[in-house]
C-alpha cells in the first residue's frame, strides 16, 4: 500500500493550498523530511517535507492546482525495491511492458515522465539545462532557489558581476511571475480542476451574487488572497463558536517598573528585547494549568479535545498582513526564554521565512493590540481554539489600594473571548483570575531566567 501525502494545513485559517512545484519527479527516491513539493497558500509559501522515506510513486495534483487541506496530493511507496517495478507495471501507457529489474524500471519511469509531459514542463527541461548552467554564473543560493521554484535559469538575466545570477535576480523574477496571474486565475481554475471542492464563500448564500455596482463617489477594492482568507475565517469563527467575552484588570506596576529599569540592559546583554508579552504568556500557561479546558477544541461530533501541549499562537502584523505563528511548548520556557522565542518568530514572520511547522498546531492565542494604545479589545477566536486573550495597553491610572488609599498604578485590561460551548463564566473567570494572580505575584526584583 503506498502512503498518501496530504495537502498540509498551513495555518489554522487556511482551508486550501496550491502546489507551486514538485521538487521530486515520479520514480525519484525521497528521504523522510526531505522537501517534496512547494506549497503556496494565502498566508505563506513553504516546502512540504516528505512524511516517509520511499519512492515517489505518483503525483496526484499538478503544479498550480489548488486543492482542499487533507486531499491526497501524491503517493509514496515505502517498500523501495518492490515499489519500483510495481508502479511501472500498474501504470498504463506505452511503457507498461514488463521490466527485468528494478534498475531498469527506474529508467522506464523517467522516460515515461518526459514523454507524457509534452508541453515543455520543467521535467523535460532539466537534463538539458545542466550544460547551460555550467556556462552561466550562478551563486549557490540562486541555484537552490531556482531549483526549488522550478525556474529555468535561462529565463533570467543576472545582474551580478559578470552577469552572475544572484538572489535579487531570482526574487525579482518570482515576484514578477506572481504579479501576473494572481486572483482571477485562481478563482477560475479552482472549480475546473477540483470538482470535489468549492472554494470558501464568505457567509453568502450559494447562489452566485450579482456583481457589485459602485456609485461615482465610491471606490471598488478587490481584497488580497490573505484578506479573503481572514474574512472567511472570521465569519466562520463567529458562526461556529458562541463567543462570550470577559475582562479583568491587572496591576502591572512591578513588572512595568522592572522593565523600565532592566529593558535596555537585557537587550544589550541578550541581543533581543523583553516586553510585557512573555510575562503574560507565562501567566497564561499558569492559567491553563489551573483551567485545562481553556486549551481545548470542540469537535464536529460534539466532543472536547483537551490539548496537553501549550502551543501559543502570537499575532504578528507583517507587511503582507496578519499572521499567527506558533510558539511551541510555551510552558517549558522561562520569561527570558519566551522573549527569545518571540523575537525569533517575529523576525521570521517579518522576513517572510515562516515554515509549515510555524503555522500549525497552536492551541491558544495571546494577542497584543495594546501596542497600538487600545485599552479594551474584544477578540474573535482563532478556530478551533476554545479561547483567545487580548492584552491591552498598560496605562497609569489612579487606583484604590489597601486601606482605601488612592495610588497611581500601572494597569492593564485582559480580555478573554471564549467558546461558551466549552466553558462557562466560572471557568473563564477562574482562568483570568489565575493569570492575574500570577502577573501580580512579582515583586520589585524579578528573576526572568
Amino acid at each position: 500500500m503506498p502512503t498518501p501525502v496530504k495537502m498540509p494545513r498551513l495555518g489554522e485559517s487556511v482551508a486550501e493550498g496550491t502546489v507551486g512545484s514538485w521538487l521530486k519527479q515520479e520514480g525519484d527516491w525521497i528521504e523522510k523530511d526531505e522537501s517534496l513539493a512547494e506549497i503556496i497558500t494565502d498566508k505563506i509559501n513553504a516546502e512540504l517535507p516528505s512524511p516517509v522515506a520511499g519512492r515517489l510513486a505518483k503525483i496526484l495534483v499538478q503544479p498550480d492546482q489548488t486543492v482542499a487541506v487533507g486531499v491526497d496530493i501524491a503517493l509514496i511507496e515505502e517498500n523501495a525495491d518492490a515499489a519500483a517495478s510495481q508502479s511501472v507495471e500498474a501504470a498504463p501507457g506505452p511503457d507498461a511492458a514488463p521490466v527485468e529489474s528494478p534498475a531498469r524500471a527506474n529508467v522506464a519511469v523517467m522516460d515515461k515522465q518526459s514523454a507524457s509531459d509534452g508541453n515543455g514542463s520543467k521535467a523535460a527541461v532539466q537534463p538539458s539545462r545542466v550544460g547551460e548552467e555550467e556556462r552561466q554564473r550562478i551563486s549557490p543560493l540562486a541555484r537552490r532557489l531556482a531549483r526549488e521554484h522550478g525556474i529555468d535559469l535561462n529565463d533570467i538575466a543576472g545582474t551580478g558581476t559578470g552577469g552572475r545570477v544572484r538572489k535579487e535576480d531570482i526574487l525579482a523574477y518570482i515576484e514578477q511571475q506572481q504579479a501576473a496571474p494572481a486572483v482571477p486565475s485562481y478563482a477560475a481554475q479552482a472549480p475546473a480542476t477540483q470538482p470535489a471542492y468549492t472554494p470558501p464563500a464568505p457567509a453568502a448564500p450559494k447562489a452566485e451574487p450579482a456583481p457589485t455596482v459602485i456609485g461615482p463617489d465610491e471606490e471598488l477594492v478587490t481584497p488580497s488572497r490573505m484578506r479573503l482568507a481572514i474574512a472567511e475565517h472570521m465569519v466562520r469563527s463567529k458562526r461556529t463558536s458562541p463567543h462570550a467575552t470577559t475582562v479583568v484588570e491587572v496591576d502591572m506596576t512591578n513588572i512595568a517598573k522592572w522593565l523600565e529599569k532592566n529593558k535596555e540592559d537585557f537587550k544589550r546583554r541578550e541581543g533581543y528585547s523583553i516586553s510585557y508579552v512573555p510575562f503574560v504568556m507565562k501567566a497564561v500557561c499558569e492559567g491553563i494549568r489551573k483551567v485545562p479546558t481553556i486549551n481545548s477544541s470542540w469537535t464536529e461530533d460534539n466532543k472536547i479535545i483537551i490539548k496537553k501541549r501549550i502551543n501559543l499562537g502570537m499575532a504578528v502584523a507583517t507587511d503582507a498582513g496578519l499572521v499567527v505563528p506558533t510558539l511551541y511548548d510555551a510552558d517549558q520556557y522561562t520569561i527570558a526564554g519566551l522573549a527569545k522565542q518571540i523575537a525569533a518568530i517575529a523576525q521570521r514572520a517579518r522576513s517572510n521565512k515562516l515554515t509549515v511547522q510555524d503555522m500549525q498546531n497552536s492551541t491558544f492565542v495571546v494577542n497584543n493590540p495594546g501596542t497600538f494604545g487600545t485599552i479594551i479589545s474584544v477578540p474573535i477566536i482563532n478556530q478551533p481554539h476554545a479561547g483567545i486573550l487580548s492584552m491591552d495597553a498598560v496605562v497609569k491610572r489612579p487606583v484604590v489600594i489597601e486601606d482605601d488609599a488612592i495610588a497611581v498604578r500601572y494597569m492593564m485590561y485582559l480580555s478573554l473571548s471564549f467558546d461558551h460551548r466549552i466553558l462557562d463564566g466560572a471557568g473563564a473567570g477562574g482562568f483570568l483570575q489565575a493569570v492575574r494572580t500570577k502577573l501580580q505575584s512579582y515583586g520589585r526584583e524579578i528573576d526572568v531566567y
Partner: protein
Amino acid sequence: MTAVTYLEAIGQAIREEMRRDEAVFLLGEDVGTYGGAFKVSAGLMEEFGSERIIDTPMAEAAIIGSAVGAATMGMRPIAEMQFIDFITCGFDQIVNMASKFYWRSGIPAPMVIRGPSGGGVKGGPFHSASPEAWFFHVPGIKVVVPSTTYDAKGLLKAAIRDNNPVLYLEHKLLYRMPELREELPEEDYIVPLGKAITRRAGENMTILTYGAMVHQCLKAAQTLEQEDDLDVEVVDLRSLVPLDREAILESVKRTNKVLIVHEDTLTGGIGAELAAILAEDLFEYLDGPITRVAAPDAPFPYAPPLEDAYLPDAEKILAAARKLAAY
C-alpha cells in the same frame, strides 16, 4: 555615576570579583606597587595587600604555571601578561597544563589569563600581537575578546567565575578611547561566555568580527548605508570559544552574504574556521563568496606608515564589502 573607560571597567571587574570571592587574586609583572604597565590594577595593592596582588619576576611560564597550580588547589587566579605577545613564553603551561588538567584529573582549573593585545599604537613587532588563533585551536581553554566597556567588565566577571581556563584578550587601543567611555550599571552583571551580539541589524550582508575591529566595521557599515544604500548587519562574536554558532548561522542564513573581519593575520586565523563552518552548513544559502579581511601574512611592522598599511580598517572593509555586494 560617571562614565568609565574600557581600562577602568577591567579594573572594576577585578576589584569587585576580589571583594566578592576571596579565592580570586591577581599576579603578574608590576601589577602591585606600580599598578600595572597600563595602570589596570592601580589601587588594588592598597586595598587587597601584597598577598592577593602579587608582583612576579619577568617569567611568563612561572606566572601561568603558578596560576595553574593555585587554580587546581581551589583558587581563582588572574594571571596578567604585561603585553600579550609574551604569552608564548608560557605556552606549554597553557596548552599542556591548564587546558588538559580537568580532562586528565577531574580537577578543574578555574583561571583567567589576560593582557593587552592588538596594534594601532605604534608598538612594533613585540607589543602588538593578536594571539587568539593559537589558543582558539586548543581544546580546553575558552577565549573571549571584549569590544566595548560594558562587555569588558561583564565578560571578565564571567571569565573569573567560569570553572575553565579563560584567555581574556583586552585591546590596548581601546583602553582609553574617549568614544568608549560608558556609564556602567551599579549592580553586579555579567556578559555570558559564548554569546555573540548584533551591534547593527541589517539584511544585505553580515559582517562577523570581534575586538577593536567591531568599531571599524560599524564605521564601514554606516558608510555603506549612506553611500551605497546597503543594509549591513554587524555581529560582534565576543566569545571565540565557545563560538555562538546559532547566532552566526541565523544571521548569514538571512543575509546570504558574509564578510569576516579580524586584526590577526589571515592564514589559519579565526576567519578560516568561520569560513569552513559557513561553507559546510550554509553552502546553499550563500549568494557570494565568503570573504575575509585580515592583516597580511607578515610580522607586525614598526614603521608607522607600514603599520597603517598593515592593519585592517574601515576603508579596507568598505572595499571588500562593495566587491562582495556587487558579486
